[in-house]
């Protein structure tokens, strides 16, 4: 019962073999051609979990935090940690023996496909297909075993966790069956819908050259045939430009350029289209529901890979961002295309937009014109904000893809180890921080200069070269916004910050980090050879670019945002000069209205910025978050909510904030520890804290209200605990 040949699957196994396994068993019993193999039942999954103790570990992981409070990045972290647990868990010897016997019997050295078969994933009522993993072209017992573990882990993938409630995912009851089948070397593959979900009168057939993974993951556009569902008559063939196809490599699959003769030819001829229509029709009759079929042709032999009921996609409401989250999972190929667009088109366009706005002389505008300009700038900012969500954030998936590849290849005990390989010294925020550090070193080494700066005697002769450098620095970095304020617009605040930096020893960090990073990179690459080495390097490069852009795009967006702020600040000053006592508190809409209608009497309805006020009755004593960077530190908390808080930051304080964005990372070197509301191992705060080796706990949503500036705080970055002293 633990492992059952596909040809022996029947109704009595239903609860143990998942939706896909059940459908394959039925297809075989109806006489259809299905690649041979076996089903690893959910009993084996349960045994694996119970024998290794994984069930309890998954329970702990899932209950660290209320899933409803997690951001998608935190859900990804959870899924990655669970994935690592599965990968690192030694396979119990008794189970291994059973597998070995089956693998030897069925496949010897043949290539296989390892596919998920979760319970209910393919049933008529649900539309969760594709949440779990499948792996194509694996050879040898060890590879099969490892990928069975990965398929099991995908029961808890980030995508599955997003739909945890709908899927009814519970550690106690949920289990995953796995299908292991011989790989069919496809000439042509595709899908068929016996009934078009968008038009009940039609049947759809889609086909590509090569394996069907390219079609299923969306990286290859298929040829499409629409047929009359009643007669089978062809209504329309929609050909595409065929450029690539999915082929097998030594140990996996890849997209390759399509040979010219294939590129010219449609994947299916009329007879084959008709054969597939008949297949779809028959399956719908036999299963009594419209079917969604995956098929493949090899040497003119038709194989069915899967058949499941057609499900209508559930529409996401505007608040339900899960559809967007799911779209974040991109293939390597897709990411490379996105990279091209971002680097060559979007970033330069953002930079020139920011420059154009900066060069524009706002002072010459009348009040009315200024109001129009503010509105224009808001629209421009909104446009780039949308681009940021639609293009830049998905590109960040390059880092995730690399993280999974790194963990699969090196099996590290720390699933976030790969992050240290991402650092790139040419990031804008890193350059800015380095320049600040250099200025601080200069102050540190020159007591006379330090003394002059401390007494604010900036015109002293000893300060002259320093002030010149500082002006150059401010010119380069002054256009960076954080929140609603522009950082580095004030010389004396910046000097205050540099004096703080100078009170700490920071000089050697970069060299040590560089050496360590190089060693890590060498260690990583030593695991590969030949084609694999090439791929590993490409993926590392993609991840670095993805991380760098993820950092820089914030800065570019910050520059555009600062241009909106620049215009609104000017408006506030003009209104203040005209006697509006509330000008500094007004939002953009009010500013526009008041500038456009000078006669309008300003209302004074503004609320002041809400100060966080602990109720006095409720006091957090110990708060749990995610341990992002190991280490233990105690100190006085500074809750950073405004730009002023940033510049008030003293060396040795504990930085408590909503989220560290690249525009504010310059305070990080001063911090003894970091506590962040936002969670996720790839957030800026966590990454930069890791670089500086500063203990960091993330993912405490109420950190900025539960902790107050001045509290004595102990941050345990090993366990993710923040303790507030009495």
């Amino acid at each position, binding site marked *: 019962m633990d492992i059952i040949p596909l040809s022996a699957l029947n109704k009595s196994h239903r609860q143990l073999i998942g939706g896909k396994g059940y459908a394959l068993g039925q297809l075989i019993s109806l006489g259809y051609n299905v690649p041979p193999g076996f089903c690893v039942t959910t009993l084996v999954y349960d045994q694996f979990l119970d024998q290794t103790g994984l069930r309890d570990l998954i329970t702990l992981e899932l209950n660290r935090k209320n899933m409803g409070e997690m951001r998608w990045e935190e859900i990804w972290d959870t899924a990655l940690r669970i994935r690592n647990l599965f990968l690192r868990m030694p396979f119990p010897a008794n189970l291994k023996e059973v597998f070995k016997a089956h693998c030897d019997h069925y496949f010897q050295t043949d290539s296989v496909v390892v596919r998920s078969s979760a319970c209910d994933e393919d049933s008529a009522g649900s539309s969760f297909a594709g949440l779990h993993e499948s792996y194509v072209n694996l050879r040898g017992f060890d590879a099969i075993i490892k990928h069975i573990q990965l398929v099991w882990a995908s029961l808890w993938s980030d995508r599955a966790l997003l739909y945890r409630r709908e899927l009814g995912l519970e550690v106690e009851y949920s289990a995953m069956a796995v299908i292991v089948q011989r790989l069919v070397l496809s000439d042509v593959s595709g899908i068929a819908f016996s009934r078009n979900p968008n038009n009940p009168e039609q049947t759809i057939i889609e086909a590509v050259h090569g394996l069907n993974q390219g079609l299923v993951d969306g990286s290859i556009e298929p040829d499409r045939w629409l047929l009359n569902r009643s007669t089978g008559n062809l209504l329309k063939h929609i050909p595409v430009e065929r450029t690539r196809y999915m082929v097998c490599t030594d140990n996996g699959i890849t997209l390759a350029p399509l040979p010219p003769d294939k590129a010219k030819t449609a994947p299916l001829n009329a007879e084959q289209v008709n054969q597939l229509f008949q297949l779809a029709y028959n399956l719908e009759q036999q299963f009594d529901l419209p079917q969604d079929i995956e098929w493949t042709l090899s040497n003119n032999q038709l194989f069915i890979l899967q058949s499941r009921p057609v499900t209508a996609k559930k529409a996401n409401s505007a608040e339900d961002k899960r559809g967007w989250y799911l779209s974040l999972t991109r293939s390597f190929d897709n990411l490379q295309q996105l990279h091209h667009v971002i680097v060559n088109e979007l970033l330069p366009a953002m930079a020139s937009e920011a420059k154009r706005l900066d060069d524009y002389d706002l002072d010459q505008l009348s009040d009315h014109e200024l109001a129009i300009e503010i509105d224009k700038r808001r629209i421009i900012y909104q446009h780039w904000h949308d681009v940021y969500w639609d293009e830049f954030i998905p590109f960040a998936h390059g880092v995730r893809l690399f993280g999974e590849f790194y963990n699969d290849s090196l099996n590290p005990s720390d699933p976030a180890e790969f992050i240290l390989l991402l650092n790139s010294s040419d990031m804008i925020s890193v350059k800015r921080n380095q320049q600040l550090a250099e200025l601080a070193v200069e102050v540190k080494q020159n007591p006379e200069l330090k003394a002059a700066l401390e007494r604010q005697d900036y015109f002293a002769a000893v300060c002259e070269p320093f002030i010149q450098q500082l002006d150059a620095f401010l010119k380069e970095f002054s256009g960076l916004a954080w929140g609603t304020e522009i950082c580095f617009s004030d010389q004396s605040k910046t000097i205050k910050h540099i004096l703080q930096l100078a009170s700490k020893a920071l000089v050697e960090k970069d060299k040590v980090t560089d050496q360590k990073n190089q060693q890590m990179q060498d260690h990583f690459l030593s695991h590969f050879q030949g084609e694999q080495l090439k791929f590993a390097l490409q993926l590392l490069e993609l991840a670095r670019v993805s991380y760098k852009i993820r950092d820089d795009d914030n800065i570019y967006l910050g520059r555009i945002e600062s241009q909106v702020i620049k215009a609104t600040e000017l408006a506030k000053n003009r209104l203040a000069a005209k006697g509006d006592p509330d000008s500094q508190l007004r939002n953009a809409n009010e500013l526009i209205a008041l500038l456009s209608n000078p006669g309008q009497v300003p209302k004074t309805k503004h609320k002041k910025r809400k100060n966080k006020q602990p109720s006095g009755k409720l006091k957090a004593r110990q708060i749990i978050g995610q341990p992002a960077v190991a280490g233990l530190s105690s100190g006085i908390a500074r809750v950073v909510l405004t730009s002023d808080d940033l510049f008030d930051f003293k060396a040795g304080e504990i930085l408590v904030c909503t989220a560290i964005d690249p525009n504010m990372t310059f305070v990080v070197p001063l911090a003894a520890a970091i506590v962040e509301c936002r969670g996720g191992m790839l957030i800026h705060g966590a990454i930069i804290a890791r670089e500086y080796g500063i203990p960091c706990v993330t993912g405490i949503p109420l950190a900025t209200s539960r902790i107050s500036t001045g509290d004595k705080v102990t941050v345990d970055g090993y*366990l993710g605990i923040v303790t507030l002293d009495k």
Partner: protein
Amino acid sequence: MFRTMIYKRAINLKEEQELFLTIHNLLSEQKLGALATHSQGEPWASLIAFAASDNLDSIYFATPKTTRKYSNLLNDPRCSLLIDNRENLASDFSNSIAVTATGVIKELDKSEKSAALQLFLNKHPYLETFTQSPTCAFICLQVNRYNLVRRFQEVMEYHPGL
């Protein structure tokens, strides 16, 4: 007279053995207990995961070093631990049993803790990462006395190692 003494002794031994087994079973079955400490007379109770040695003379637990219970124990190593099997039902008054272990704690260093830690992790394998943290202390409660309460108010005392 002599026969009566022997008889009594035999009954005592039997009772002692039965008591030992009752406590042993309870401590094996239960994963959590309530630890009582104090700071300058201010009481403090904490729920902890524990494991007991086979002869019941030691109970092991782990705690982050940043916690109040840890700082209390640093100031005064005396503490007690309540372990029970109540089910939050009326029948608990007659059916459930509770044991209070009283003694003195000692934080185990690396060289002392390997066997004890293994014992603890056999019972709580999911706490491995937690116990590996440098900020986590691994503690042995050297038990002087167990008080067993059952059948509503019957209280028996057991001294391990005597």
